């Protein structure tokens, strides 16, 4: 039942005292004409309403969540406690600089830690999410080319395996997307790339995820970034998959000029049902003068704001999703220089363990000997032989309290299930999940109809998405 249907006139919470000054009257002409219909609820009913909603949701605490490319690792509780400190939550963003020294220290230490992990020279914490970070990185590249007088460099190369945000961000940055197909191993086709780039002075750059969305580290990465640089382009690293390589390989050393990270993936901050995230952007020295927003500098223990000399502007108000940075820094401090590579090692171990065990029943896309943090199952065979699709298996997982892998992505694999188990899952959890995956494959061959009907144990069964889009009901209608 919607909260509006639970509302009863006359109920309410006692949040605010009566006004202690004389009531002022604004001009009639500027006063609201229509009624408000906000819920009128006693606190007890409010509390139960949201408890009920939470029971109809699935978080990392509820069970295994191997959603590929989303890095649903466990979210440590100390992070939340630190981000909830009054010393952070009660600080106005426009306070005098001597009263926000702690906030600036958080910014500085986070910026420095992310630079160390990625091999970049500068970081901005202003971008609010991964896609916002991509937009930022592309604007950096745009500003760089414009400052060199290269107004014709408007083409950005995006592999077909890229996240959908990549081409969408490129368009927002005023760039034209050139899709380059992957080779049969799921990697960048170096020869095709060379053909597109050689002598092409319209190339602005390349957007790449490495390891890519099939969980494969591109061994030709240095050659790829060299090809882009030789034609005058810049290389952008989509950091969505950084959890595979922390302390093992740095985007800076691979030849990337700028990078975005997702603190809500790699650095253990929760996703909140779809945000707030944080998408910090790092760059090398030659791009640093264009960085947006302000960043923190430190001298003799005193912090201050600084601005890049040719800053491209502001990506959002203030300094980004600051409390998310507090959480990420808490995590980085706990893991430290030893724990961060250790996390990546175990993420890769868990993914390979799961891939090996599942390959008994599922075809692994591109048949890698070893994957990184994630791998892609290709269910084309099951679909052909049994009619059971990636979607059906996913829905079957729901009945077993497992959040399904990312479905139908990357686009280069048609019946894809992309699984990223993360380092924070135990062998016991993986073994139990593997058993479920294997049994679902058995059911596909013995009783496919059962999977077409799944899920049956969830609060609702499969929903009519076509109807929802065709006849949109996007809000509750008050009588």
């Amino acid at each position, binding site marked *: 039942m*919607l909260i509006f249907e639970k509302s009863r006139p006359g109920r309410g919470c006692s949040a605010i005292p009566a006004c202690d000054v004389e009531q002022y009257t604004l001009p009639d002409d500027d006063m609201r004409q229509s009624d408000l219909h906000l819920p009128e609820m006693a606190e007890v009913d409010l509390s139960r309403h949201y408890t009920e909603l939470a029971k109809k949701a*699935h978080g990392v605490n509820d069970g295994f969540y191997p959603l590929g490319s989303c890095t649903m690792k466990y979210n440590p509780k100390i992070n939340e406690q630190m981000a909830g400190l009054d010393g952070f939550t009660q600080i106005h*963003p426009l306070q005098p600089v001597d009263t926000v020294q702690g906030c600036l220290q958080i910014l500085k230490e986070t910026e420095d830690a992310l630079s160390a992990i990625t091999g970049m020279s500068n970081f901005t914490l202003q971008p609010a*999410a991964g896609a916002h970070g991509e937009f930022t990185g592309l604007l950096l590249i745009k500003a760089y080319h414009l400052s060199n007088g290269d107004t014709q460099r408007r083409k950005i190369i995006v592999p077909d395996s890229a996240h*959908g945000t990549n081409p969408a961000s490129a368009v927002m940055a005023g760039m034209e997307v050139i899709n380059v197909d992957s080779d049969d191993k799921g990697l960048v086709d170096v020869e095709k790339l060379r053909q597109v780039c050689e002598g092409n002075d319209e190339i602005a750059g390349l957007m790449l995820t490495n390891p890519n969305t099939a969980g494969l580290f591109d061994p030709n990465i240095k050659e790829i970034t060299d090809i882009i640089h030789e034609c005058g382009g810049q290389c952008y690293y989509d950091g969505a998959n950084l959890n595979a390589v922390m302390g093992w390989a740095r985007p800076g050393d691979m030849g990337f000029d700028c990078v975005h990270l997702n603190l809500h993936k790699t650095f253990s901050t929760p996703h909140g049902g779809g945000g707030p995230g944080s998408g910090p952007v790092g760059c090398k020295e030659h791009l640093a003068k264009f960085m947006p927003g302000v960043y923190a500098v430190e001298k003799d223990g005193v912090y201050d704001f600084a601005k890049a000399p040719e800053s491209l502007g502001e990506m959002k108000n203030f300094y980004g999703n600051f409390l998310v940075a507090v959480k990420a820094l808490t995590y980085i*401090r706990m893991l*430290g220089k030893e724990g961060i590579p250790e*996390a990546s090692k175990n993420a890769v171990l868990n993914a*390979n363990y799961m891939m090996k065990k599942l390959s008994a029943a599922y075809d692994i896309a591109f048949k890698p000997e070893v994957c990184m943090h994630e791998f892609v199952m290709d269910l084309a065979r099951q679909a052909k032989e049994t009619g059971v699709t990636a979607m059906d298996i996913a829905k079957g997982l729901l009945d077993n309290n497992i959040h399904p892998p990312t479905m139908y992505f990357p686009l280069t694999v048609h019946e894809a299930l992309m699984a990223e188990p993360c380092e924070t899952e135990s062998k016991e959890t993986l073994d139990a999940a593997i058993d479920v995956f294997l049994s679902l494959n058995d059911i596909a061959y013995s009783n496919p109809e059962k999977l077409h009907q799944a899920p049956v144990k969830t609060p609702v069964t499969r929903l009519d998405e076509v109807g929802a889009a065709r006849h949109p009901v996007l809000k509750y209608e008050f009588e």
Partner: protein
Amino acid sequence: MGTFVPNTKAQQQEMLKEIGFEKLDDLFAHIPDAVKFKDELDLPSGMSEMEAGKEIRKIAAKNRIYDTVFRGAGAYRHYIPAIVGSVLSNETLQTAYTPYQAEISQGVLQSIFEYQTMICDLTGMDVSNASVYDGGTAAGEAVAMCRGRKSNRALVSACIQPSVMKVIETYCFGNEMELVVIPEKDGKTDVEALKELMTEDTSCVLIQHPNYYGSLEDAEEIGEIAHSVKNCRFIMSVNPITLGTMRTPREYGADFAVGEGQPLGLPLAFGGPFLGFMASVDSMKRNLPGRIVGQTVDHNGKTGYVLTLQAREQHIRREKASSNICSNQALCALAVGVYLSAMGSEGLKNVASQCYSKAHYMAQKLAEAGFEIENEEFFHEFVTSSDKKASDVLKALDDEGILGGLPLDDNRILWCCTEMNTKIDIDKAVAIVKEVK
């Protein structure tokens, strides 16, 4: 070193053996030597939760928390009922991802549907999205989505929050829309100048109401001017608290209502996370960026909720999407839903009227103390000018634990009152600044 890896060393070895590897490092053997990182990361050593907590607390303690705040300018201190924090700390709601799997995400989806309904109710609009990053990006996205094939020119009032203007500039730097600033006259958008600026290729007119200086704009007239050009949209950026008592953007004739949602239950938090709300008239719904939740039924006819109108979005449309936005500020939208439900219609009206009543009380007291009030009609922010140096005024307040208004220049200050400022606080602050030479 702290760790969140549950597998013991013995288990790790066992797993390695099962997949045919000897050492963990062997899993990285295929990374070419030329790009392999062989040093130690330039970071401090890891530590226990107790130690990390102690360090971070020490950092937090370096910030100053003011007992009394008279500063707004884009971030507002309002009372946040305890139930908001309590709901937000629910582990499931906090740790869920974007609700792609609708069958196990009904709680998250329903909360967004309820949020959309409340935003539409507040703004008078037909459709709301599930949120964008903040008030600045909401304005930037709104300007971008008004762009038409023959209309590439955005008119934006000089009286909007300066950082929002900067964000719009950034979005226009990206998509190469022409951005023209409508000049200010006496602290408000210059309506006559706007008339002169209107051209056939104008795609939108954006104002903030009440504006950055707290003043009420001639919103209805501006809307009529905007609509004098075919396919030109009228975007209003509003503080949602005002909508408890003030005319809705729809009632002023706006096509889009956008704004900073932070005043509705989110703490100041050094500027984030906040959230941007975006709502539109029905005819523009397929241009809205970001997630939208719709109601539907399941196979058994039971009511349920799904992400819908996804043909607008990046994961389907890639380079043809209306925006690149993916993650938004869902948990902040949940906070808004809880806040508005805890306040109810009467509670929000009460907050709104306390805001402007207290601001007018303070303005009157400051006027009596010799400050000139620059605004005609205002909501809960206003600008004073005085011979007294702004820095001296603010220093005197600071010494007493009061964060005064935002200095606009040497002698002008932008003040803000909310329901949090008591009459006693206001009287005390005015008494302090009165003594400043």
